[in-house]
């Protein structure tokens, strides 16, 4: 898997979001806020190289989630949402659509 499309979904409120691959920050967004009427905050691509895990973290909230990308087949889309005090992730073969 070369690249992954990351969609930040529900639960973000002026957050900083970092995506790490092999302990390196490969994407960083600040001021991330969800538009609740479409459940979308931001979207971007990250390069995975040969990594099979990826970390999403919200450093200001002390939240972190590790995503296992092994065995996800052709899925190239990662949805990330914050529910309560936890980061929820969802791997999808289809791009995330909003309405």
């Amino acid at each position, binding site marked *: 898997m070369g690249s992954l499309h990351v969609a930040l979904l*529900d*639960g973000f*409120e002026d957050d900083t979001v970092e995506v790490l691959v092999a302990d390196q920050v490969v994407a960083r967004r600040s001021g991330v*806020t*969800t*538009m*609740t*009427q*479409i*459940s*979308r905050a931001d*979207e971007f691509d990250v390069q995975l190289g040969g990594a099979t895990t990826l970390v999403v973290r919200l450093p200001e909230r002390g939240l972190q989630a590790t995503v296992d990308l092994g065995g996800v087949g052709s899925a190239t889309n990662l949805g990330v949402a914050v529910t309560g005090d936890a980061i929820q992730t969802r791997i999808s073969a*289809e*791009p*995330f*659509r*909003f*309405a």
Partner: protein
Amino acid sequence: MAIKVEPQPETAALTGSEEEAFGIPFWPPFRLAASGLYTWRFPISIIPRQPIPLPKLPPIPDPGPWRGGDVTEAGDGQAVDTATSALFPILSERIRLDVDGRYPQMVVSGDMSTGLFSTVHWIANLTKTGSNTYVGAIWYRDPPVAPFPYDSVKVTTGGGWLFDPRTATVTFSGPGGIQRTRTYTYTSPYFHDVDLEVDFQTGVTPATSFATCSHPNRPATLPCETLTIGKVFQRAGFNVTSSPSGTVPVAGAGANATWSNQEMHDAMQVYWSHYAPKAQWATWIFFAATHDMGHGLGGIMFDDIGPQQRQGTSIFIDSFISDPAPAGDPAPAAFIDRMRFWTGVHETGHAFNLAHAWQKSLTSGGKGPWLPLVDEPESRSFMNYPYFVAGGTTAFFADFEYRFSDQELLFMRHAPSSFVQQGNALWFDHHGFLGANALPEPTYQLVVRANRDRPSFEFMEPVTLELKLTNATAQPQIVDEHILDVDQGLVVIITKKGEPTRQLLPIARLCRQASQKVLQPAESVYAPMLASVGPNGWNISDPGTYGIQVCLHLPTGEDILSNELRVIVEPARTTEDETLAQDYFTEDVGRVIALEGSRVLDTATDTLTEIADKLRHRRVAVHANLVLGVPLATEYKVLSRNRKHDGQQYRIEALPARPEEAKDRLVSALSGDPTRSAESFGHVRYKESVDQLTGFLESAGDAADAYKQQDIMLETLSGREVRGRKVLDSVLKEIKTKRDSLASAAGVKSR
């Protein structure tokens, strides 16, 4: 369209309207459905028939029924209307009865215009008890501190046969046997009016209808018909009118020919015939080609701009909603039509303040539901994404009945109009509510109260309340000992006029082993509750009046609703108070108060020390002394950065107790003015804190002072009487036993 037009009814014929509202044909000899809008107006012709659009003022207390026996209306001959107020006339009333027809929610709700330009909104769940009678408990009032003393209703419907006008007689009942009865006249099969205007970008074909059987993937029982967006909202309870459609030139989208939210908002102001910067039951539905976000955005309720939001919504035809059907789909054209139609209704639903199905419990930017809702990630509702459910789009439409969920229908039909009406409440504020499952004869009585004669609190004084849960049945009940802890499932709602509703959240959630106790009939359990602050900040800070209500959800599914307590926060007395308040109402100070102390949040501790010293005669000082003293009483562990080079980044450091300082602070908090402390902490928390101090003194070998603290508490609580209530003898006996057990060690002769 820029021209002003008269709206046209979506379905002109009355019988057609009734069919949409209730889904079955009505003609004699069948009786017409009872559901619909019923009204009553003050029977004097000089009273304006339409409400005068003046600002909403606080409700003026209605002194209740006129006891003089003036009969204003005899209804169907069975019930007599006795609702005339003695002082302030009730100018008009409406009820929405929802017991039959299309998607009945078994609910009645009402609006009562009391006094001068203020209204009370109430909601009750109903159970059918006869062919035309229903009973149920009132579980919602807006405003929550409204002078509306009723907690249950009985509804009797009348008429409905040929030439026999429909009526609904409602008997309201409250504590002490108080009752009022009102007979209402049937006005409409719909609960609200709304106008939908569909405009479209030049060259774009709007998708406002769908033939339900054009695609074979559908429920076997789904009727074959051509649905329209208007018809869907008629079935949700709205009298839908539609203004003529018109075109919008793509030039409004700017040079890139794709639309931003601001560009659509600008277009709405120009092309929507109903546009006005005010709340009104009307929505602009705009079919366009593409949004700036591109193919991945199928539609958006773009109007979260300015003070009047949710007036406009848009659907993008050149987006994923027009993507070809999957290979092998039996009706590819219908697949696309269906997706476009779903998007049209979905976006229009947002204009009615409906959130996505999986967002029902979500609070964002301080805005959310009034009570935590149940998320519905698998619901077959227009407000869910078909491609988000298990099994994807195919699974969704296999079970989709082209409707909203019950939770959404309850909201649109029965929530206070201001939450739903376009241009009124901001997007996502009060975006839905849960129908509390309150029974007419609840298992328990739940009371929230302040342990003082008037629920008035000094400025900066933490508002500590008491909860009392009483077994209201004739049978023993088993309850968890921690049933009244906020972190164990209590829902506490705090409202203040003009501000978003807040929920009191627990500062921490404890995982406890279940510990149950038997509650005999009429026996009660008690718990203190700090309402001022939680992890989401200060709930109660500024001077003013706050409403507080608690909902206890039982494992059986029953909801126990408390009374609505009105709490007053007094203004600051001096400019020094106001200056200190700037440092006091911070997140860290709130956290220290909620956690009963800290030895790491130094700035907050400094602020509380300054308050304890400078405002020593104020009630906030006793709270400050308590939270300053508690963490000093015992050894305190902190996580600190490790300065040793042993590979560990952090280490746990134990700060030694400072017993003398702790004793000074705690004695000052609890025994300096014990009556003030008992009143400010509430009896339950006061006793818990004195017992904590006693234990600390005992472990320090100071039996004499330990005895003294129990003795002071016994004397204080023995003398307390709040609104005619004394402290329970069992509690006083427990304190006396504890005190006497310390007597010999303290060198005191037992009394």
